[in-house]
Every structure is written in C-alpha cells, then in structure tokens.
C-alpha cells in the first residue's frame, strides 16, 4: 500500500485513484455530529471557529477514553452520512479530506469533486486495531462535548480506501 502524508495538497489529491488502498500518516482533526453542528452554525453566522479547516483532514470518530498509559482508546470511523448536511460548507472553508465509513449523499459527492477534495473510508468496527495507528491525541476544541470534542490526532500508517474523489 502506498504511503500518503498529511496535510494533503490539491496536487497530492490528484495522484490518488478511486478505490486505491493507501496508508495515511500525519495530523487530522476529529469531528462527529455535535462538533459538525457547532462548526456549521458558527460558519453560517459568520463567527470564528476554534480550528482552521484549511487543508485539513477530518476523521469522523468519537474515541473511547485511553486506558492508563495508552494514547487513545478504540477509535474506528462512525457513519459519514450523518455529517452530509454540513460537509459542503466545510469544504467551502478549505476542508480537503474526510475519513469515515459508508456512502455519502449526491450533494456531498458533487461538492467533493468541485473542491478537488477526497473522501476516504476505513474499516468500521475495528477501533481497537485502528487505535494502534494513532501516535498522539489531544483535545483542541469543544471539550464540553466529551467524546464528541475535536481532537488533534497524529496518524501513522493508518489504512484507508479512496472512496470519492
């Protein structure tokens, strides 16, 4: 499997092929339902958001807490379709890649193409396996959301498949 390093650039996205299995290494932000809603509402009303989405990769995950001495708990992907209503606006604000599981809506697929972004899928229900591909984890925003807070994760050889380009 080919190694891809984050953050991604539009040129790097061009080298990806649909259906290609690759290993991602580098920084991502996590966000799921509640964080998406907050980001979306802030952007919509012209407010500042606590993280920059420019060139950013979002991983749809709400991890389990780390066991003592561990970096992170189980951390597999959640169903991406629930983020669909918010995704086009986030892409407009510079988001370049997403990692999740399952199909996206037609609107999102079109927006991904329009912004030359990419949607990766990874293996759902394999959170223990995927936890070994995370090298650091730190909450960076929306701490009050608990497992739905935005984390900065550092991935190393994290396996994904290019689903939508």
């Amino acid at each position, binding site marked *: 499997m080919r190694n891809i390093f984050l953050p991604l650039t539009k040129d790097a996205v061009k080298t990806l092929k649909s259906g290609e299995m690759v290993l991602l290494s580098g920084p991502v932000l996590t966000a799921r339902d509640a964080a998406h809603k907050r980001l979306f509402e802030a952007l919509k009303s012209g407010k500042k958001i606590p993280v920059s989405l420019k060139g950013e990769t979002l991983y749809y995950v709400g991890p389990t807490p780390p066991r003592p001495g561990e970096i992170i708990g189980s951390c597999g992907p959640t169903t991406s379709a629930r983020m669909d209503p918010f995704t086009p606006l986030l892409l407009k604000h510079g988001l370049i890649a997403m990692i999740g599981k399952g199909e996206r809506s037609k609107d999102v697929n079109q927006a991904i193409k329009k912004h030359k972004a990419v949607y990766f899928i990874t293996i759902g229900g394999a959170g*223990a396996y995927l936890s070994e591909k995370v090298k650091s984890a730190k909450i960076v925003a929306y701490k009050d959301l608990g497992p739905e807070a935005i984390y900065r994760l550092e991935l190393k050889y994290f396996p994904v498949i290019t689903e939508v380009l």
Partner: protein
Amino acid sequence: MIRIVDSGSIKDTVRDLFIKANTSLRPDLLKGLKDARKKESGKKSRYALDVIIKNAFIARKKMLAICQDTGMAVVYLRIGQSLMIKGDLKKAVSKGVELAYKEGYFRSSVVNDPLIRENTGTNLPPIIYTDIAPGNKIAIKVAVKGFGCENVSKTRMFRPTDPVSSIEDFVVNSVKEAGSRPCPPVYLGIGMGGTLDKAVLLSKEAIFRPLGKHSKNAHIARLEKSLLEKINRLKVGPMGMGGKCTALGVSVLTYPTHIAGLPVAVNISCHATRTAEATI
C-alpha cells in the same frame, strides 16, 4: 423454594457482562467471520475481514473496546417468581452499567434528552426490560447497542394477506438500502407477529441466538435460509467492499398476532454484535 439474592451480586454480574460484551467478540461471530474470510475472494473484502478478525484479538488482549461505539446499554432481566431481591434492582443494574463503562474505559454515548442532547458522562441510563418466569433464578442478558446499525433498522406493518415474498423483499431491501453503513457482514434479527412493539422486541432478542442455529419451526428455518441466500446475493460484502458475505446469519423470532395484521421488524446488527448473558 424461595431464594434471596443480594442486589450487589446483580450489580457485579451486570458490570462483568458489559465488560465482556464490549471487549470479547462472541465465539460464534468470530467463527462466522473466519468462515466468511475463507469464502471471499476480493482483495478489499478479504482485507476488511482480516482487519475485523485482527481487531477482535487486539481488543481481547488489550481489554479494549471492540468498537468505539460502546453503545447504549440494554439489559434483559428474566426474574424467577420465587426469587426475592434484597435491595433496589434497577439501581443495581444502573450501577453495574456505570462501573463497567468507567472501569472498562468505554465511551459514554448517552445524552440526557433527545433534543437537549447533553452527554450524561456515565452512559446512564440503561434500557431495562423485565420479564417474570417460573423458578428462583435471575437470567441477565445484556446488549451493547451501537447506533451505526440501529439507525438503519426498520419496521413495517404488513397486511395479513400479503405474500411471504413481500416480507422477504422488505427485509432484503432494508439490507440493500443500509449498504455499508451498518458495518456488514451483519447479523440480522427479525421479529414477526405480535404488536408493533412486540415485533421490535423479538427482532432484538433474535440476535442472542448463536449464529448458525436455526428456528425450531421448519417454515421459519426455511425462511431464514432463503433470506440469507438472497441477502448474500446483494454483493454489498464486508464493509461494503463487495463480495459474497453481506450477512453472517438471519435469526427470526415469531409470536401470534392479530387477524388484521402482520408486524415485521428488521434489526440490522453489525459484525461486532455484542451481547453477553449469565444466570444467578
């Protein structure tokens, strides 16, 4: 004979069952996944199954949650009518759940209100179902209910005169529409008959049946086999990667119903269907 059980032992058992269910994949499901791996030929579908099988071993070894969605805690109690419980039963169950999620480092996935949506931080409250049975024991079954697959489960009220084929179409289409969202290969629980609520409950209880076992009613066992064949012809495959194995099994439970109705509930349960049970 009347028997007395302390609610403390119920609390401990509930805690142990949730830790087990969350970290140790059911042996029948692990076997089902390994069998599926042998049948698949596609590179990606085999890869998905390899990762899922490795995941089960890592989870067990490290006592990590099989899936980060450690679910809503659902508890089924079948209480012997000759059993006396010392203490508060529901409080004991709740405490057992709270301890399991704290000690197991599982995710708190419950919000206080469907609209206000503040995380309770304890994974409480659980959902508790109680039933009374003869005897002086208490049977405790727990389910870790993740919502990736819960969100794609379905019910429909059929006409009593509808052909079985229309029920089969409904079930097969539900799995098709769900696609890769419920984390296939899935274990399908189906409830047929009773009332709307009874059919749903049956569909939930159905997935406790060990994979590979069929209904004792010949016509229902035939239906289970026919459904499995049809679903696996959909070619959704492991995690939507295509292939022969979209479902690991189909388990149908039935109940008598009304002359005017035929409720059907389809509980689509992920490859990490997590349950555990014990009797005190």
